[in-house]
């Protein structure tokens, strides 16, 4: 079993870790860095619960090897602090059990940053990659749209 040293920059902190080349980014974040916010839901790229940002792009961390993420800026849910999208999720009751929430939030956060003018089609294209089993999605839609609308107010 070959292990290697990987330099990861997570939430603006750098970490040097030793991992198997086959270890996924999700596994390393959770089991080596204790960042358990990203959740395993399928380990197959289907559910989106493990979504993190790599180079500002939402990535399913179960589908990326840790070595592929080396030296790229990574943002996990633990790196979001009192952002408008987090507040909107709370205000709009956009989660219940909370298990899909980190993935949804990361994805929605990137969406609102990259597409402040997102139309319904763009919102769907982004968010259909994540599964929520508790809410009706209507609450999540309201949360995302409330943040997009506020961005416009500020413009």
């Amino acid at each position, binding site marked *: 079993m070959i292990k290697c040293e990987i330099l990861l920059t997570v939430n603006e902190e750098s970490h040097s870790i030793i991992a198997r080349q086959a270890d996924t980014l999700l596994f390393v974040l959770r089991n080596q860095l204790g960042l*358990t916010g990203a959740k395993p839901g399928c380990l197959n790229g*289907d*559910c989106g619960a493990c979504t993190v940002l790599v180079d500002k792009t939402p990535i399913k961390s179960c589908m990326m090897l840790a070595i592929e993420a080396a030296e790229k800026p990574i943002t996990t849910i633990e790196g979001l602090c009192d952002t408008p999208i987090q507040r909107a999720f709370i205000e709009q*009751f956009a989660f219940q059990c909370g298990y899909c929430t980190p993935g949804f939030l990361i994805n929605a956060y990137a969406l609102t940053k990259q597409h402040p003018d997102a139309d319904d089609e763009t919102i769907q294209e982004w968010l*259909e990659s994540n599964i929520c089993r508790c809410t*009706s*999605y209507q609450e999540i839609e309201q949360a995302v749209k409330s943040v997009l609308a506020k961005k416009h107010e500020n413009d």
Partner: protein
Amino acid sequence: MIGKSVIRKEAWDKVTGRAKYTHDYFEVGMLHAKLVTSPYAHARIREIHTEKAGSVPGVRAIVTGEGLPLTGEDLRDRPPIAFDKVRYHGEVVAVVVADTLVQAEKAANLIHVAYEPLPSVGSPREALQEGAPLIHENLANYQKGKYSYPEPGTNIAHRTKIRKGNMEKGWAESDVVIEASFAFAPSDHAALEIRCATAEIRQDGTIVIIASSQAPFMIKRLIGEYFGEDVGKVIVHTPLVGGAYGGKAPVQLELLAYLASKAVGGRKVSVWNTREQDMITSPVHIGMEATVKIGCTADGYIKAAEILFLFDGGAYSDKAIDVTRAAAVDCTGPYHIENVWCDSLCVYTNHPYASPFRSFGHCEQAFAIERTIDLLAEKLNIDKLELRMKNAIRPGHTTPTQVVLNRSNVGNLPACIARLRELIQWDEWQRIEINSRTVRAKGVSCGWKTSTIDTDASSGAILTFNPDGSVNLISGVVEIGTGTKTVLAQILSEKLKMDIDDIHVKMDIDTQTTPEHWKTVSSRGTFMAGRAVLSAADDAIRQLKAIAACVLRASAEDLEVGYGKVFLRDDPSIYVPIKDIVYGYKYPNGNAIGGQLIGRGHYILRHLTPLDKETGAGKPGPEWTVCAHAVEIEFDKRDYTYQIIKAASVIDIGKVLNRRAALGQVMGAMSMGLSFASRETFLFDRYERILNAQLRTYRPIRFGEHPEYMVEFIETPQIDAPYGARGVGEHGLIGMPAALANALSVAAEVPLNELPLFPELIWRTKEGKQYGSI
């Protein structure tokens, strides 16, 4: 405080990634287990070769099924690890324990099991045919509960009978009779959090389990019962649970974790399903076949109902017996029918075994009943809501199990129907052709549900105080996402007249220190735990007044508690702060009285009885929540695809305790019901192997596919419930499959009596094609 949309207590933990679930508790030195599962649905196990696997570095133990006790909640028919034969695709045949998951997986792949395939049984009707393969040859000898009635020599694990009124009279009074049959295969809960359990057995015999479960207290009891362990030495921790929907009510992985730990000298072992195993190895959403025959007068009054539910309980009965019983309890739907005959069977098949699924047998039976009601309305040429209104269950009527209803124990269905009629503009149109290709249609349905839980199920609550006078609320309800613990805090806040921010809720469960709440199921959390909290609050208030009476030199009867103080009723300026007395009161000279104040309360449901074996007579639950639903769809006549445009529910909730939380429960349940009805099913091959056990091929509704949801509440209080609130966690789901099927049947102009409603099913039904090819 009551009715306010208070944000959930654990909200910030959940949006910052701090919320911890079972699999987030990682420990250095913890061993990992990998399950080896059966590739066959029915096969004899000839040999299991573990030598190669055992020599993989890091492997510490391999556990197989020999010599283990049988398990099962109502009927002990299930070996925790298959022994002698496997009865479903995905059944556990061995558990490999290793230092790392990678090692355990590697070893698991090297275990060779020699099987001799047996003929498999693929549906309840097939299982009941003469000469069908017997799935449990030994059924007669299984240990069973007092109220389970297996039929040895058949594949029937249990039969619930409902016999009410006089069927001959009912048919004689009927001018019109309609009969139809229905079917759907098992599907899955697909909670986002994969099931997980860890176990360790300490030197003194203490067993510590961490489990993603709706029933931590049941895990404790069952490990005691199944394995002869001292129940006081079993401690179960349950942190936040990442979705459950009934699927985490059974006890399964916890037993494997216990056995695995035992095999490695008590070291801590984690058992964690893969998504694929979580879908088929762990219990699933039950399938059903049914035949419903309803007779009514020419003017639309239902006189008789003959109902046969054949539930696909899968390979083992476990909780399925209860589910099939609950379906029988409310078998007629929320309608007044004097003459009822119902047999509800829990049938063994070679499918994964079933567990509760949100609505506990009700969305399943409602699909059959509400489709039949629509067919009846069409035959009678009566408005579909009018027919439902005419027969709506009301106070004074009796339920199928002969409980007399009153204004407290049943909600107001006529009010729900009337409001739904306005909400969806039913009278304006029910089917319109948009163009030559597109048609819009509405479908409606009604539902009702009581709980069918153990008659002695109870709930406890403990209140402790902090030095600043704030309160810690400790209840055995598991936070599975329903927000019940926040609602409990609201109930307490109202009762103690205390700021909600001064109430701290203990989120996780530790069965050693948390008072028991039987199971977090059946929409009974708020009712039972709410009553327990109110009782604990009363206890705390009594103690607060007793000590304040000494301090204030006043009679306890003259005191009030609220706003952080105990004060004189007629002069609130004379008071003692709660914080000064909850750890005893110290007089200026140093003398002290009292001590730490602990409020305790409990609640047990009153006057519940088991069902009579021959007639079903009995009182299964305290109240019935009623609901009316509608779905509006847009259907493409050329390619048979459709979009769900709107979905509506009007529910008699008794009293809204937290508006947004209640709306969330109902809308989430509706979404789950529509997802199940439109697209969720396991696909089986002819050997009953499952072809789509992953979320890529088993595809729940995703963002953007959701309709517009409309939810309204009627408030008819249940007198015994906290502030009158009725159970509401499941009811949004009940009528969704039926309403969708009713809408599509109208749109496609063909009766659709199977689920899920894939476009292909509609095409096949419309074109009368047997097979899915052109």
